[in-house]
């Protein structure tokens, strides 16, 4: 058996007479129905595996909700850190003022004793 034998055996053939007319008849009867166009316009996933589309939509919703919660948590965390830093500065200033007052009181007391 040679390639030529295969090519001869598997050569092209013609359909029976009137093939194109039969195709056009089917086109006229069912080829351009709007329902078919809508069916072909939808994605293969939505058409053949509706549960996959629903799962993808659910996963996307969970992803978005998780993201929103994360952003909100980060915003509150930053606010708390800023408040803590402000309080620390305020305490440091107060401590310094108190130390200055304590030094002045001590000096006044020593002067009074010496007199």
């Amino acid at each position: 058996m040679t390639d030529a034998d295969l090519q001869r055996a598997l050569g092209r053939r013609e359909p029976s007479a009137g093939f194109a007319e039969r195709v056009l008849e089917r086109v006229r009867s069912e080829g351009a129905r709007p329902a078919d166009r809508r069916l072909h316009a939808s994605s293969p996933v939505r058409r053949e595996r509706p549960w996959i589309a629903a799962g993808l939509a659910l996963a996307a919703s969970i992803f978005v909700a998780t993201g929103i919660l994360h952003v909100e948590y980060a915003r509150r965390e930053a606010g708390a850190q800023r408040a803590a830093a402000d309080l620390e500065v305020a305490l440091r200033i107060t401590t310094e003022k108190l130390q200055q007052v304590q030094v002045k009181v001590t000096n006044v007391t020593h002067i009074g004793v010496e007199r």
Partner: protein
Amino acid sequence: MMLSPCVPLDATEAGDALDRARRGDTSAFEALVKAHQSMVFSLAYHYSGGDPAAAEDVAQDVFLELFRHMDRIETPAHLVFWLRRVAANRCIDRIRKRRFEQPFDLMPEPRAQASTRDVLLDDRIRELVSELPSQARAVMILRFQEDLDTSDIADVLGMPVNTVKSHIRRSVEALKQKLGVKTQS
């Protein structure tokens, strides 16, 4: 049995018919069907093991799908590629659904000066090709009916080139072996 002759189009006619068919001209679409009916029908015919009724069903389905997707066809070359791919996939799908159950309902076809030995060998080859696994059968038909090279077959069937080469090598070996065994017996 009267056959429907293929009416090939030259490059200019093919481009013109494609443009008009995309705009909804059914006579242009009919010209495209007549130009490519032999290719599509033959793919299904050989794939079905020589069942003309099943081949006609597949070929009609392919052209109906073409009509619905005309707006996606860009060039005459793209049209040929699209028809081969859709026809091959339709045939493979039908095998999966077990709709080609009665192969070898071979109708007599007129042959030009073929010897009796050639006719018998041709029938035997077609029989053995129809017994090949689904993917290998598609590869062999595209290779020897359409005379496609391995990279074109890989594109049409969406498989690696090396897989195509492997299918051809193993299928030809299997056919030779079975022909040898059957000839001796």
